[in-house]
């Protein structure tokens, strides 16, 4: 309105100003203006001030409007169904830190369901109700893992809001181009705009631009990078080179080969790593020659055995191809070099080198002088890097094999990565077999690799294993990690299979006191959460 508490920018009403001055100093020092006959000075001042106060308030008029912000761009997506919108409000109301922690009881952990709610809503292409955006942005601010899905769901209006509130600045960073529009391919001036942004843009804008072009036209991105490559700073070269990971192909080889002679060691290492992921590259062939010289089959023993002769030195050509000469503390340098050679060697070369054997046969061969774990670990890294399912299968072995559960040649972390190269169904089957044979205590990491919702054999294996764990008499919180995963990942249609587990069982003699009650509670929470997820999916029309 026309009057603000600071009288600076308002046309001062002189009568009022004089009243305020007189009031501030006191009528003993300053005689107020006007003044009615027969009234004491302070009372006359109050009379006049009362009239003036009411007059000023009654005279308030709207002010001129400040600059209007550009409206948020239209969100063309359809609105959420009403029930789903209510559900979202409930999930967002369950913010961490707003209530006591402690035992979870039978109530579902709503905040943990937000990621899959967002995934389902995004899959169906619904628009976020605008009034929920502040709570969504606040949730994404606290949990970086939520950000991609939350911002995708929040849509263009969230970026518009983030420009107005510094608390949500992360939404601008997460948006390609930091919220500034990238040149669109259909724009007739796209080429010129791209060149200008590439040459004059901020680092973040340039990374965003390069990534966007790389996703669309890999060659164009590489050519753009080549125009300024020699003048970029070392840190920037590293970041730009990293963005070539997307859409990596044989046509990138000459550029990467040239980067092997880069001044910066980190740039050289990244270039070598990218080249080794291209099995047809010259670098891969050079590595294959080196690695093959170290590995052979010895037929003079009772059964064919792999012998390893690790390299004796790391020469300049090896170093140029990305081999790191200095071993980390506690590792022999020859085995360190050897591991790097095998890791960068195309897996396809081994069959020819080792007597035409299949990967499974090769992995089954004994290895002399304790080289097995070194060699298998390097093959695991190669299988993951080259995304080779056949080798991954061979290295994983049978899920029920005794060494799969214990500290074998291949660690759990490596197994989890190997699983990532297999199809979803095969992955689930392998993990189901693993749990059936070895129980749940080592399964957490492997379960994390499986597609959600869990395939039916996997879900059944988990529920059976939980049932066995309960009968063994331990407390459920020893399995809280798996239990939490099951709440989020088990197929809701499995809920009916859990009905038999909801009651408090008779306590066996050797059981931990009260464990039965806690298990019943944990299963109730599991079932409740599954029902809630089914309801969520139904509300979003995802069933």
């Amino acid at each position, binding site marked *: 309105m026309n009057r603000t508490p600071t009288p600076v920018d308002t046309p001062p009403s002189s009568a009022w100003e004089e009243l305020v001055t007189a009031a501030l100093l006191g009528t003993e020092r300053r005689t107020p203006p006007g003044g009615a006959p027969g009234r004491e000075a302070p009372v006359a001042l109050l009379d006049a001030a009362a009239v003036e106060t009411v007059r000023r308030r009654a005279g308030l008029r709207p002010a001129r*409007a*400040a600059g209007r912000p550009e409206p948020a761009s239209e969100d063309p997506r359809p609105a959420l169904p009403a029930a789903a919108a209510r559900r979202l409000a409930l999930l967002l109301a369950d913010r961490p830190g707003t209530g006591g922690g402690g035992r979870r009881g039978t109530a579902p952990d709503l905040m943990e369901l937000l990621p899959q709610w967002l995934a389902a809503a995004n899959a169906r292409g619904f628009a976020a109700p605008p009034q929920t*955006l502040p709570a969504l942005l606040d949730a994404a601010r606290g949990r970086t893992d939520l950000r991609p899905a939350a911002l995708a769901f929040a849509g263009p209006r969230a970026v518009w809001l983030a420009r107005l509130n510094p608390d949500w600045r992360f939404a601008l960073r997460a948006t390609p181009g930091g919220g500034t529009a990238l040149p669109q391919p259909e724009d007739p001036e796209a080429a010129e705009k791209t060149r200008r942004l590439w040459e004059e843009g901020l680092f973040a804008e340039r990374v965003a631009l390069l990534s966007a072009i790389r996703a669309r036209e890999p060659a164009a991105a590489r050519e753009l990078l080549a125009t300024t490559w020699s003048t970029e700073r070392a840190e920037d070269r590293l970041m730009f080179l990293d963005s070539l990971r997307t859409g990596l192909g044989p046509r990138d080889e000459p550029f990467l080969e040239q980067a092997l002679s880069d001044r910066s060691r980190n740039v050289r290492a990244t270039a070598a790593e990218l080249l080794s992921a291209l099995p047809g590259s010259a670098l891969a062939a050079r590595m294959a020659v080196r690695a093959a010289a170290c590995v052979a089959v010895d037929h003079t023993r009772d059964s064919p055995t792999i012998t390893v002769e690790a390299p004796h030195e790391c020469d300049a050509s090896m170093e140029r191809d990305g081999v790191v000469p200095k071993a980390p503390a506690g590792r022999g340098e020859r085995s360190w070099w050897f591991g790097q050679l095998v890791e960068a060697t195309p897996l396809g070369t081994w069959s020819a080198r080792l007597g035409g054997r299949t990967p499974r046969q090769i992995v089954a061969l004994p290895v002399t002088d304790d080289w097995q774990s070194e060699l298998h670990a390097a093959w695991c890294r190669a299988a993951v890097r080259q995304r080779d399912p056949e080798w991954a299968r061979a290295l994983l072995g049978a899920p029920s094999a005794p060494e799969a559960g214990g500290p074998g040649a291949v660690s759990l972390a490596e197994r989890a990565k190997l699983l990532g190269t297999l199809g979803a169904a095969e992955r689930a089957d392998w993990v189901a077999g693993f749990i059936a044979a070895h129980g749940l205590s080592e399964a957490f990491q492997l379960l994390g690799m499986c597609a959600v919702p869990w395939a039916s054999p996997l879900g059944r294996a988990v529920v059976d294993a939980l049932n066995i764990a309960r009968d063994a008499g331990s407390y459920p919180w020893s399995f809280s990690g798996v239990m939490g995963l099951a709440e989020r990942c088990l197929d809701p249609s499995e809920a009916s299979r859990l009905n038999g587990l909801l009651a408090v069982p008779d306590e066996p003699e050797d059981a931990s006191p009260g464990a039965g009650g806690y298990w019943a509670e944990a299963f109730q929470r599991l079932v409740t959460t599954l029902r809630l997820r089914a309801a969520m999916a139904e509300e979003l029309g995802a069933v």
Partner: protein
Amino acid sequence: MVGSTFDVMTQQGVRWSADQVLALAPDTASRKAGSKLGAAGPWSGAGSSDEGAVWGLCKGSGSKPYQTVVDIADAAGPAYKCSCPSRKFPCKHALGLLLLWAGEDQAVPTGRAPDWAEQWMEGRRKRAEEKRTAGAPGSSSGSGDPEGARRRAERRAERITAGATELEQRLADLLRGGLASAEQAGYGVWEETAARMVDAQTPGLAARVRELGSIPSSGPGWPVRLLEECALLHLLDQGWLHREQLPDGLAATVRSRIGLPGTADGPPLRDRWLVLAQYDTADARLTTRRIWLYGADSDRTALLLSYGAVGRAPELALPVGLALDAEVSAYPGAGQLRTALGEQFAPPAPAVTRPRGMTTARAAARYGEALRADPWLDSVPVTLDRVIPIPDGDSWQLADADENAALPLAPAARARPGLWRLVALSGGAPVKVFGECGHRGFTPLTAWPQGAGEAVQLC
């Protein structure tokens, strides 16, 4: 006959939304705890009846589940009963049960209430019936000693007159010495004066005096605000001392501002009253709940006030977005918006009605006009049509979409999370906003999007 009509009309077609249920929670902890119980897991034997009862058994930490029952048919807000020991009201079980019911889950099917729930409902119905008969015309209200009541009122008026006279003296002393000295005097002087006004049985003056004490520390521009408040206090003193010469309406306003209790004896006005906003303010002693209603047919806005002791939610709760077919009666005083809820003809039900709106210029003028009847008024309830929230330096404005005019947001409204819900809802496009418009600026309370969509609470 009234009773039977009531029973027939309580048929609930539409269930409430989760937001409307959560608005009943007495505090954030209860909201949170209630949301957790709003899923089928801990509940068994839940159900609802056409008469507006919702019941269920909730598994707690003990062996015996808690019996929870809610009567949602009462237009004065739901009533609750739960066998849990919680002193929160409503407790988390009642909230969880209503959430379950609101979720349109099959977990709360329509059916016959179990005996324990039915007994409680029966008791409530009987009490309501007794109250209705007792309040019927013919039965005498008041203590039956009109002469004694008159003498008591006279004695109180004398006390107030003495208090107002004393306060006039103190104000004159303050102005003689200057407001600058008030900055040094601090809070204690005003607390003592406020205590004298409590002794003089004038809570209205006491509250205003207490306010004075906080102004010198309220930041830049305090002398102007202190002078304004002193002047209005002086005006109220003078109004009381000369109340015989005032027109009846204004005299009633003065009596109500002084803190004399009034009875809502205005003619009952029946309408479809839409609940526009509900919010609580609390001081050290009391939680005050304000509920703004909008009469869809009369285009009138009415205020319901409800009080609760500290830490307890006031009993009356009307979730935003519901409408009730009911009568309200105004309290005495010119321009008085406060009413009391009278007879209700149907339980509250969700409604899509929106209040009629106006421009910012009209809203400012509306405040000015209202000051004529009540010069002590801080704000009036208005609905702005087609306004856009605009950032203005550190603050925000609500600007007319079609004119170059804007109302600034009140300072207190700038820090509330509701501001961002309003900004998000608008996205730079016009929205309809209900709120309070006064000399401090505009305080948005509820907003509606340009197209279809539910009311969004901002407070």
